[in-house]
């Protein structure tokens, strides 16, 4: 029967629909609103402003002048920028790869009460990620310094030669990568422990009953079920590595020469030392596009057969 609905029935239906609409759409939106506002104010609007600035010639004390795409044209011929670009890729690739391996190893070791004093170890490995990167940089410069560094002092005390940790270009890059991994791994370890603890224990029990080796258990159970957490770690570590600045600046000032100079330091230098805000904005826009592209690729590759149960 498709008769005309009574006003009472229609009223109740509307009420339910509106309530449902509120609970399902509006309420979550209201809860998200503060975050959305913060995101818009501090990310979206500055990004749009940055894009606008990148089309101008602008010093701190002068009015911006619109110059179209001239900054981007200059950027493509700027050898120093491309050197910092390739340094950034090298730094990010090795930092993220080592960071993931090291933090996963730590998480696996400190997840199942396999070690005595596990909580103490977790804290010890986590502490570096709480420190300011400037503090970490100063401490490691004191450890790795050519003449005044502790490591070289010990080596020389035993009759050895000092190692040029920070004055040889390749070693300097390796040093800042290893220190970055040391400083950041604790944070990702905590995320991965969270992921490991979410894996049902029954699966491991079943694997043990079936006689699966630890390696097979890791390959067939842990890794697939940790994939979504690993993806989060991958994306966070990548974004963080692209934005690295303080630690490297304190340890090497980007040197020797340009050996450890990354894009962010070049942006800072161009903006504040050379007083070219527009050109620095163009660099930032390119960095933003790079991070966006890398993140999309990571999601595409890692998330292809993702199981978001």
């Amino acid at each position, binding site marked *: 029967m498709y008769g005309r609905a009574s006003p009472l029935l229609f009223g109740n239906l509307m009420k339910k629909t509106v309530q449902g609409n509120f609970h399902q759409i509006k309420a979550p939106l209201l809860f998200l609103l503060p975050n959305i506002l913060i995101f818009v104010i501090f990310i979206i609007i500055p990004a749009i402003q940055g894009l606008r600035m990148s089309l101008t010639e602008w010093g701190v*004390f002068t009015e911006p002048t619109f110059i179209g795409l001239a900054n981007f044209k200059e950027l493509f011929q700027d050898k120093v920028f491309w050197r910092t670009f390739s340094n950034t890729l090298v730094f990010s690739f090795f930092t993220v790869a080592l960071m993931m391996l090291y933090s996963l190893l730590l998480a696996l070791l400190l997840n199942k009460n396999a070690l005595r004093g596990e909580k103490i170890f977790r804290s010890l490995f986590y502490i570096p990620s709480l420190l300011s990167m400037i503090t970490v940089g100063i401490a490691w410069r004191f450890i790795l*310094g*050519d*003449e005044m560094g502790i490591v070289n002092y010990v080596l020389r005390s035993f009759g050895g030669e000092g190692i040029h940790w920070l004055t040889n270009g390749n070693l300097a890059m390796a040093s800042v990568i290893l220190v970055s991994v040391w400083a950041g791994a604790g944070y990702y370890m905590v995320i991965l422990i969270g992921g490991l603890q979410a894996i049902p224990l029954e699966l491991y029990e079943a694997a043990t009953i079936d006689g699966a080796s630890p390696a097979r258990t890791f390959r067939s159970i842990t890794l697939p079920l940790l994939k979504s957490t690993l993806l989060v770690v991958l994306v966070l570590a990548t974004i963080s590595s692209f934005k690295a600045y303080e630690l490297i600046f304190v*340890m090497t000032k980007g040197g020797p020469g340009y050996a450890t100079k990354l894009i962010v330091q070049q942006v800072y230098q161009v903006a*504040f030392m*050379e007083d070219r805000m527009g050109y620095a904005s163009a660099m930032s826009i390119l960095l933003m596009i790079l991070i966006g592209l890398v993140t999309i690729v990571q999601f595409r590759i890692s998330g292809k057969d993702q199981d978001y149960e």
Partner: protein
Amino acid sequence: MKKIAVFLTILLLATSTLFAAGTKEEGTKETTLSVMWFNDANESDVFMKTIDDYLKANPHVKVDLQVVAYSEYDQKLKMMISGGNPPDVARISTNTLSVVVDSLEPIDGYVDDIEKVKQEFLPSMVAFAMNKDNKLVAYPTEATANGMIVNKTAFDNAGIDLDAVSKTWTWSEWEKIVSNVIAANPKMKYGLAVDFTPHRFSTIMYQFNGHFLNADQSAMEFNNPGTINTLNWFKHVHDSGLVPKSVWLGSENPAELFQAGLVAGHIGGSWNINTYNKNVKDFEWKVVNMPKAAINSSVPGGKFVASFKGSANKVEAQKLMAAFSDNAHNEAYCLDTFNLSSRADATIDYPSNSKDFDVFLSELKVTPAFTANEWKNTNLSKVTTYIKEQIVEVLLGNVTPEQAVANVDAKGNTYFK
């Protein structure tokens, strides 16, 4: 009529009282001056100590002191100025002065006789503090000079009469002498540490007759025989192990190397006297004349206090600066911070190191005048970091000195268009 007269008298008295009260309120209005400072050693503490009597005599004035690390100082100051929120008073170095000079409030509107004020300070310092309209925009506080501080004990151990040899030595003579010093002191590894800054590099460059800019300062001219010779020499002393690579290639602090007794000498500045007085206990040190290349030269510099066009408390800021810069306060400040005074009439009896200050002053006297003008140039300040990078590229052997100077000129000249 009588009533009207009485009424007018009362009205006059009442309004006079009101105006008088208003004036009093204006003069004693509670003011908090935001003051930004950086430290070479203990300058911010000494500044507060120095102005203590002024603040007691002017209880309506308070100082909100913000101490910022020198490495972040320029950036922070620029952002505050461009954001329309500059401090009321700031300590400013010569380098920073060239960048912010157009934002500084001229002093002439706040003093009775600006010419008299100018005459109170060293002419070279006044020259730094003039804006393009030829107005004084900052009070000079300390004069600085680059120079060489050496480990006297190490020279004594090598049987070298430091006072005698340093009177007329050249850089080639210095190489031989300092090699003997290293040989005679087992702990000592190097002859000289040079601060990792283009400013300190330029000390040697000027001695080799080099320069950054052309004569009328309208373009870069880093590509000149003097500068190329300096770069070749600088690479040579690094490669031969007389100068530690860890400073220019690894950002190690040369003052720490000197204090540890690892280097025989340090090309730094007059401000290092304060630091070494406090920290060096294991050996005797002193300031000596730098070796000669083509000429003798130092690099003049200084520190200043200034207020800004955008300051909300210009009058009180200017009063505070004037008081801080008068003879008594300036002498007290320079005495406690172990700095050379910028005042022409200063007679400071330092408890020690008077002879060291005399050496710095004697080096300043033979320094060519154009050196100050170069370091006052706003466009040069934009390219100094790139110059530093190119010098390191030369030291690494990645570019030749000729390529480096050409690169610097090409980039630097984009700022002179």
